[in-house]
């Protein structure tokens, strides 16, 4: 680990050791009033099928459908010192139905979160100073579901080299979450609520906090190649298990999922984009991940946008992911009752996944259907297969107005 620290320090030194030449970025005159940079509207439909639900102890339906919509607005203005201020407002809303959530309380007609609406808006403000080549920003995000609330705070700082070929960026985030510990019907103590809307009996509230630090260094290598390396260590503490996940022991007894109260994660990613010839771009991504629950994972993604015309591109993509199970994972009925921690959640089990699909993007110079501000339209479809037999399909539509 010491060697790794030295290497990261070397990279940062390289990143900061920029030539002190004349600043060429001083803008001349630009309008200072607030203007709309862009508006993005994203809609997606996601559906999955599988038979390893953690709610029923690692067996049972994982059927889930999610309709997600996002609207973001980006505004900018220059101040008197020629600093550029960028304001982003992002509003997201998901509606999902989950067959496994319906099994939390099979005795009732409808359980606590059989279907739910997930709302998560965010606001951010960023200032770029061309004289010092630094960007600073702060952000706030909120997320609410039936049994879960999250407040997120972000601060970021970035510095560019004089020639704009290199950027070092730091982003620190804190998420302060609270959730109701809804238990499976048969495991509720007496005088403990179901969490259902019409049930006024108490349900415990538990915290889950996450602290992230993302450090990235990007580099324009030549006229066609752009690289970035990013490390994002993260520490979580609080209730990290899901209380309504069931676990079945070898002796046939039943309890709820139990996991340690802390988790330290270390993902390191490398992104490389290469413009091949005049029409093809290769977008490659690789991530190594390890955590102190003994999960090790590798993720690779390759996307190749091909410009059929200057205004129409087709982007086939393929993503591969493999991970080892956390040390507390066992399948249905295989847990040792003497052990402290246990889960049958296949999301943190040993899995290999493949995600394949394609996107089509249209961005005519005069705008879509002649509407000048309707900058582009993108449609993407992807098919996801997990080694456990779970499959999913996702369809996404993006409308960009500029």
């Amino acid at each position, binding site marked *: 680990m010491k060697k790794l620290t030295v290497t990261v320090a070397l990279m940062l030194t390289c990143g900061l050791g920029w030539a002190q030449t004349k600043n*060429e970025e001083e803008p001349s005159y630009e309008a200072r009033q607030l203007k709309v940079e862009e508006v993005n509207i994203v809609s997606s439909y996601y559906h999955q099928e599988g038979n390893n639900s953690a709610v029923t102890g690692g067996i049972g339906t994982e059927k889930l459908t*999610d309709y997600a919509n996002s609207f973001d607005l980006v505004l900018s203005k220059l101040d008197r010192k020629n600093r550029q201020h960028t304001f982003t407002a992002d509003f997201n809303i998901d509606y999902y139905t989950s067959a496994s959530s319906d099994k939390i309380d099979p005795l009732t007609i409808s359980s606590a979160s059989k279907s739910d609406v997930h709302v998560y808006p965010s606001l951010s403000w960023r200032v770029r100073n061309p004289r010092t080549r630094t960007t600073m920003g702060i952000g706030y995000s909120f997320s609410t579901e039936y049994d879960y609330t999250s407040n997120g705070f972000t601060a970021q700082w970035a510095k560019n080299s004089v020639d704009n070929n290199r950027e070092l960026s730091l982003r620190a985030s804190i998420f302060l979450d609270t959730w109701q510990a809804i238990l499976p019907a048969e495991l509720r103590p007496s005088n403990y609520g179901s969490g259902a809307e019409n049930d006024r009996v108490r349900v415990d509230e538990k915290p889950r906090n996450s602290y992230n630090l993302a450090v990235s260094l990007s580099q324009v*290598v030549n006229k066609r190649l752009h*690289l970035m390396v990013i*490390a994002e260590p993260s520490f979580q503490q609080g209730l990290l298990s899901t209380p309504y996940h069931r676990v079945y022991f070898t002796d046939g007894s039943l309890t709820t999922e139990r996991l340690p109260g802390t988790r330290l994660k270390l993902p390191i990613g490398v992104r490389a984009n290469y413009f091949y010839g005049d029409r093809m771009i290769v977008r490659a991504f690789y*991530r190594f991940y390890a955590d102190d629950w003994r*999960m090790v994972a590798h993720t690779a993604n390759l996307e190749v946008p091909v410009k059929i015309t200057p205004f129409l591109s087709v982007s086939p993509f393929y993503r591969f992911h493999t991970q080892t199970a956390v040390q507390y994972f066992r399948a249905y009925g295989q847990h040792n009752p003497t052990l402290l921690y246990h889960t049958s959640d296949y999301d943190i089990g040993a*899995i290999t996944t493949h995600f394949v699909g394609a996107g089509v993007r249209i961005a005519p110079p005069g705008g879509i259907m002649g509407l000048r501000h309707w900058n582009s339209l993108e449609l993407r479809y992807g098919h996801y297969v997990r080694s456990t037999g779970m499959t999913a399909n996702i369809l996404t539509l993006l409308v960009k107005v500029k």
Partner: protein
Amino acid sequence: MKMNTKRFLYGLSLLIVALSLPGCASVKEYQKSRINDSEMELAGRKAEKFETSFYLYREGASGANGGKSSGGCGCN
């Protein structure tokens, strides 16, 4: 973490440094028509937003991919 994991991380870091060093040769703004193409953007793309979310829910590994890495339940 195991020893081979540490070696892997060390090797990966060295590779990245080696790849970055030629970048010290400056590319001028007028030479960046390809680098500035919208498809060459290094940040996560808007159209991938919900794909990144479902990876976060369906897989145990997260972070370092430009997406949100925490906050929200994702337990369904």
